[in-house]
Structures are given as structure tokens and as C-alpha cells.
């Protein structure tokens, strides 16, 4: 039970908002020491942990293309495009993205979206563009909320979409672990099938929240500026 001190350190460290890098490193060292590893083994664990997890940093490879198209006004163009469409609101833009992200992930196309390649250059600017049309200048607090929901739509879509696809890591992990440990013979297809009810529930819950997001933004806007939202068609020009 003593090893749980490491977990406690992480919780406290994140809660008081210390630099997460330091929190994670200290918690790792403490846990390893409690687990009876010596300093050399700990250094080796950090080294091999880094080497085997390099794949999570692959987002760096897409930064060059995003950087140059942002320089030439991609975000502005995405805003332009959306602010011409009268019926689109921030919530509806994100709902559409949620649907696209979940459906494409469900057929195995998880690499279509993502935070670096889609949310920052396209999805968020489009949601902001819709908000600009409604509010004119979007206050910082509203931008912050729209940003959070832009990333959230991507996460919810991909998490609860990809599990409907058979050849995804989590399904293969279940079958490998269960088949070898308990001598079952589970079909990946069967697991994927039973992920569908949750996938539908995720879409309904998150979709409902996105539709309500617009009203929430309206209220917040009224509170901040003291005036109610009107359509700023002029910003489309």
C-alpha cells in the first residue's frame, strides 16, 4: 500500500498546480524507490520509458505545415467561411465536427482529425468564426470556453468512435489479455459491436451539451458585456 504515496503526490501536485513535469518526475522517483529500485534502475526506467513512448510526440511532425498555412491566414479564412453561413453557431459547428470525428474513427480513419492537424487550424477558428458572427468581438472568457469544447469534441468523438472499429489498440488489448489469461476466445468483432450502445450514448450526451453550449455562451456574453447577443452580419465582410 506504501506505493500509493506516489499516486498521492501526483494528485496533490496537480491540484496545487505545480509544474506537471516536476510532479511526474518526483512521483516517479518516489514510487520507484518505494518499489525497491536503485538509482541506476530508475535512470534506466526513465530512459527506456522515453524511448518506447516516442510515438506520442508525433504531433511535432505536423507543425511545419500548420505553421506555414497559419502564417498565410488559414484561421482567418476558416473564420470567413463560417461567418457567411447564417445558421451556424459555435455549438453546431462543434456538433458537426463531433459527428464527423466519431464516424470516421468508427471506420478506422482516426488520423483524419486530431488536435494539431484539425482542431487548432480549422475546428476552433470555425467555431470562433460562428461566435464572431453572433457577438462581434468575442470576449476572452468565451474564447476560452469555445477552445475547451473544440478539443473536447475531438476527444469524445475519437474515443467513442474508434472502439467500434475492430483493429483498434484497446480492442486488441482486451482480446489478447483475456484470451491468454482466461483461455477465452473472444472475437474482436463482438467487442466492437458491443461498443456501439456506448458510442451512441456518447454522441447523444455530448451532442446535447454542444447544442446547449450556444445558450450558455449567450448568457455568459450578456453577463460580461451587459448586452444581449445580436447577429453581427457586418463581420462577415
Amino acid at each position, binding site marked *: *500500500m506504501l*506505493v500509493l504515496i*506516489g*499516486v498521492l503526490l*501526483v494528485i496533490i501536485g496537480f491540484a496545487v498546480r505545480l*509544474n506537471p513535469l516536476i510532479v*511526474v*518526475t518526483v512521483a516517479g522517483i518516489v*514510487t520507484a524507490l518505494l*518499489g525497491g*529500485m536503485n538509482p*541506476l534502475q530508475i*535512470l*534506466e526506467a526513465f*530512459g527506456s*520509458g*522515453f*524511448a518506447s*513512448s516516442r510515438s506520442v*510526440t*508525433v504531433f*511535432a*511532425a*505536423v*507543425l511545419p*505545415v*500548420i*505553421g*506555414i*498555412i497559419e*502564417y*498565410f*491566414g*488559414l484561421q*482567418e*479564412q476558416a473564420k*470567413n467561411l463560417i461567418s457567411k453561413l447564417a445558421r451556424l453557431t459555435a455549438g453546431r459547428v462543434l456538433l458537426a465536427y463531433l459527428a464527423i470525428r466519431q464516424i470516421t474513427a468508427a471506420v478506422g480513419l482516426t*488520423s483524419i482529425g486530431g*488536435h494539431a*492537424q*484539425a482542431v*487548432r487550424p480549422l475546428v476552433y477558428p470555425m467555431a470562433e468564426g460562428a461566435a464572431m458572427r453572433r457577438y462581434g468581438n468575442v470576449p*476572452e472568457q468565451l474564447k476560452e*470556453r469555445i477552445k*475547451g469544447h473544440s478539443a473536447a469534441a475531438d*476527444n469524445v468523438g475519437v474515443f*467513442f468512435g474508434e*472502439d467500434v472499429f475492430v483493429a483498434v489498440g*484497446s480492442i486488441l488489448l482486451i482480446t489478447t*489479455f*483475456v484470451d491468454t489469461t*482466461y483461455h477465452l476466445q473472444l*472475437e474482436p468483432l*463482438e*467487442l466492437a459491436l*458491443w*461498443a456501439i450502445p456506448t458510442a451512441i*450514448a456518447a454522441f447523444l*450526451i455530448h451532442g446535447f*451539451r454542444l447544442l446547449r453550449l450556444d445558450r450558455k455562451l449567450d448568457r455568459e456574453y450578456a453577463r460580461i458585456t451587459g448586452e444581449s447577443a445580436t447577429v453581427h452580419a457586418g463581420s462577415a465582410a
Partner: protein
Amino acid sequence: MINVEAVYWFIGALFIAWASLIARDTGHRHRIGSSLFWGILGLCFFYGTWVQAGKAPAWILGVAVLVLVGLASSGQLSDGKAKSSTPAERVAYAARFGNKLFIPALLLPVVTVALVLAAPVLVIGGTPILDPKNTTLVALTIGAIVAAAAAVVILKPRNKLAPLLESRRILESIGWAALLPQMLSTLGILFTKAGVGTAVGTLTASILPKGSLLAAVAVYCVGMFLFTVLMGNGFAAFPIMTAAIGWPVLIQQFHGNPAIVFAIGMLAGFCGTLCTPMAANFNLVPAALLEMKNRYGVITAQIGTALPLLVVNIGLMYFLAF
């Protein structure tokens, strides 16, 4: 064959290139610290190849990683706020290039998906061209290079290195968060080695009331959720919660349908991923990428979906699997 190590070398080379740009930026507040951070990080991507193959000592890489953490947490790493086009220039460029700007942005996923789909037939003399174990990573990197090249051709920047210069700006706004996902995955390994998982599994199994199916389902799902919050992903939680409750109680004692129990159990864990800073690449890196003021703003937006969905998962498992 294009091996996944080639992808890591490409990323390592990018980091070193960004580091040298920062080293030449005399206006940078932490020029030396920041260029050292990104430069060492880049070298680690190369050296990691030999560590992964077991041909070089891992502890050297461990020391380098701790140096990176030291640089980042002692305030030696900062955002140099590299100059880019002004908002007015961007509006003008957007008016000039219009929807052509979307071509590189769309080329990236199109090339990636096309390569992933075509990978099984892209074979020369019996060897696949793309690393079959990491097809998506290799395809995504090729897609990114093609898209960047297309952007240079279409937009004709004065400096052909514009993709590199402009991505440095984004990288610096992400800052230390770029290293966090890898550190967390190391922490997960250390937790597992030290037996944190087994301890949590014993703890949850000990609070399980005997004989109640609904309670057992709830403890399994909530356990998956909490465990995932602590470890940052459901993959570490699944074997432990399944050994503690899923298999002995839900399958053997209550005769649940294994496919339904395990599929929904994993998804209950995914609800946890939505709520935890430990899942840095999903929750903290995007907040940095979008330059949010609140580091936890993405999690705040997700909790309202994750908690009701957890309850739905408990209900689905209870009604469908038994």
C-alpha cells in the same frame, strides 16, 4: 521499408532545427536554456533508437530526460514569441489565397488515409514499404511532409524554410507540455513495476459488497474510471480491474457475457481519460496548442459528458450483459 525509427529521426531533426533557430534569436529571453532543451530533446529521439534496440545503455537517456525536466522547471525554457505575420497581414493573405489555403490542410489527412489504406498492397519484393506495425505513424509523417511541400508550392513564401520558421512559433507556445505525454507514460511504467495497480485492485475489491450484481457492476466500472484517472489510460487499468473484479465476480460468479462486460468496462475507463491531466496528450497538450489560459480548460469541458456517460455504461452493462 520506411521504419518507424525514420519517423522518430525526422522528429528529432525537427527539434534540432528548431533549437538552432532559437539559438540564433538574440532577442530570446532564455535563448541558451530554450535551445538546449529542444536540442537535447531532439538528440534523445535519435539515441532512443539504440536504447529501444537494446544496443545502448538506457541510463544515459534517463540522465538526459532529467536534465530536460530540470531545464523546463527551473525557468530556463520560455516562449521566444517568434515574429509571424500580423493579424492585418493574415486577413490580406486570406483574401488573396482564399480557399487555396485549405488544400495543404486537407492534403494531410487525405495522403495519410490513402497511405494507410494502400499499405497492404505497397509491397516491394515481399517487404512492405511502410512499417506494418506502425503504419499510421509513418503515413501521418509522410502526409505532413507532402502537405508542407504543397504549401510552399501553392503559397510561395519568400523564405522556403517558412514551414520550419513558423512551426517554431507553435512549438514554443506548447513549451514543456510537449515532453509531458512521454514523461507520463514513463510514470505509468514505474507505477506498474512498483505494484501500484495491484494495490488499487485489492483496495477496490475489498469494498465490494457480496452478492449484489448491481454493486459489482458499479464497482468494476467506477474502478476502471478512477484507475484510468490515476494512470492516464484505460490500458493499464483494464488488466488489473479485470483480474480483481471483472473475471472472478462478473463472469465466474454472475455469468455475465464476457464480450459485453469487457467492451463496456474499457469504455468506462475511457470516461476517466476525459477527466484526467494524466492523459496529457489528449487534455493538456491541446490546451497548450490552443493557447488556453486555464491548463485544465479541456477537462472542464469534458467532465459534463464523462460522468453521465459513466452512469450510462453501468446501466448498459447491467442490462445487456446479464
